[in-house]
């Protein structure tokens, strides 16, 4: 893949275009929500994507968390506003607040856990029913580093994803496998340069990124 979403913290690779940089860059921002059963690795995927880190024992998310990350595809700067939700069933009542108005969703399951795959299907159904009609949904079969003890077959999930119009990848927050790629694939599928349809169109010129050093992408 030609584009890399993050620079691993290495500052300033010179010519790279920043969101506040040259004007030929289009920029857009998308609201993305992560859904899925408890302990499938939602927060770990976000942590890997946003900070390039992995914790073996990631604390469970109580409520929800909000993070941002910016990537570049071709000449477009894409800023993801990421809503990472709690997986336990009873926190479900809070979920609509996060997927309402979301342009993208990653529904995560654990390839070692059949129940989590069934739960993912339920989330997909709920999104199709309740979320914005144009929402881009990706299905992530996480913990792919443990594929020797998988119970959910790749082909089964892939077929389900195809039948339901979802992007699909197996990912590993632990090794980083396909983590950036799944966000990139989503970014590519999202309509860009269409101000009317995008909730937040352009990033403020001084976009004070205290969260992360802005990634130098578009290399």
């Amino acid at each position, binding site marked *: 893949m030609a584009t890399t979403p993050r620079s691993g913290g290495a500052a300033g690779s010179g010519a790279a275009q920043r969101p506040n940089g040259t004007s030929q860059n289009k920029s857009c921002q998308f609201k993305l929500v992560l859904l899925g059963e408890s302990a499938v690795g939602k927060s770990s995927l976000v942590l890997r994507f946003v900070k390039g880190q992995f*914790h073996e024992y990631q604390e469970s998310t109580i409520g929800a968390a909000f993070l941002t990350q910016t990537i570049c595809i071709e000449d477009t700067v894409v800023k993801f506003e990421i809503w990472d939700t709690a997986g336990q069933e*009873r926190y479900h009542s809070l979920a609509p607040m996060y997927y309402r108005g979301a342009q993208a969703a990653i529904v995560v399951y654990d390839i070692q856990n059949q129940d989590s795959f069934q739960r993912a299907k339920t989330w997909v159904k709920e999104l199709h029913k309740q979320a914005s009609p144009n929402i881009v949904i990706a299905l992530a079969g996480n913990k792919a580093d443990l594929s020797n003890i998988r119970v959910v077959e790749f082909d089964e999930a892939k077929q389900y994803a195809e039948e339901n119009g979802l992007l699909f990848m197996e990912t590993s927050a632990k090794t980083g496998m396909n983590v950036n790629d799944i966000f990139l694939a989503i970014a590519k599928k999202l309509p860009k340069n269409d101000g009317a349809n995008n909730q937040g169109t352009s990033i403020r010129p001084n976009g004070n990124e205290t969260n992360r050093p802005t990634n130098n992408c578009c290399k």
Partner: protein
Amino acid sequence: MDATASSKFSDVDEYGFKRGDNFDYKAYSKFMDGYLKTLTRRRMKWEAILQQKDFDLSNIDAKLKRYIRKGIPGPYRPDVWMKISGAAAAQQLNPNLYKSLLELEQFNKEISDSISIDLPRTFPDNIYFDTKKDSLYNILIAYAHHNRDVGYCQGLNYIAGLLLIVTNDEEKSFWLLKHIVENIVPQYHSHNMANLLRDLAVFKELVIRRVPAVNRVVENMGLPYAVIATKWFICIFAEVLPVETVLRIWDCVFAEGYKIVFRAALAMFVTHKNAILECTDIAALANLFRDVMIQDSIVTDCHGFINAMFALRLKRSELESLRKLAALNKTTT
């Protein structure tokens, strides 16, 4: 590492928690210079009242309330918490409850599995806690079977875990957990979380009333109060604020009840008003709530933070009427 080298404080606190990479040793050292003296003074005062014959900890008069607000010394916490909360009295009425729950023939597998998944991810950075995981499991599984309406709610692991660290006693932790879940914040942890949703709405209204400019920033940026404060309310600040600050808050919670949770939450907003107002986008705002203000010098100074909590004007009657309004107006948050 560099930061600790020049500090007299270890990178692990007295409860076994690793201090974060951004821990401000300098500010902490400055705070502790004064606070150690306060701790010694409080310890002597508490010793004196606890030595009094037939001193009744379950009768919280003005003097005892004042003492509790100024902090219960660590070694006395387990017993004092048990008595001031009424947990000890409840235990006396049903002394075999905990044991009998652990002797149940079979535990619900789904509940047992979800507790087991959370054990290794409860306080993974605490150097003592590994040895307490079996006890934590016992407390949570016993409680889940005692209160079927709640079962196991994620977040209870942090409350029970911290209770276990402080009391070092499974059964006391069980009774204190039961007291929190049933008497302090009932229906927060149950399947529909009805009262949590109601109190998030109440809290928002309180912010609107006390620090309207802050609410405008939060609302304009589109950060829901549920993202900011769900964990505060569900965990009563465990695994949110620095441990000593949480314990000082819990001292008051056990004596005075749910109102303290609102005081603490509101104090978070009031003491960080300027920082919130300075945020220019939602990313900065979310980062402030998630990472910065849960470990800065304002909240690390537990004594100062408690003082800030009690400097706020807040009456139970106001909270009750806001709760009624929120119940009528269920669609908000």
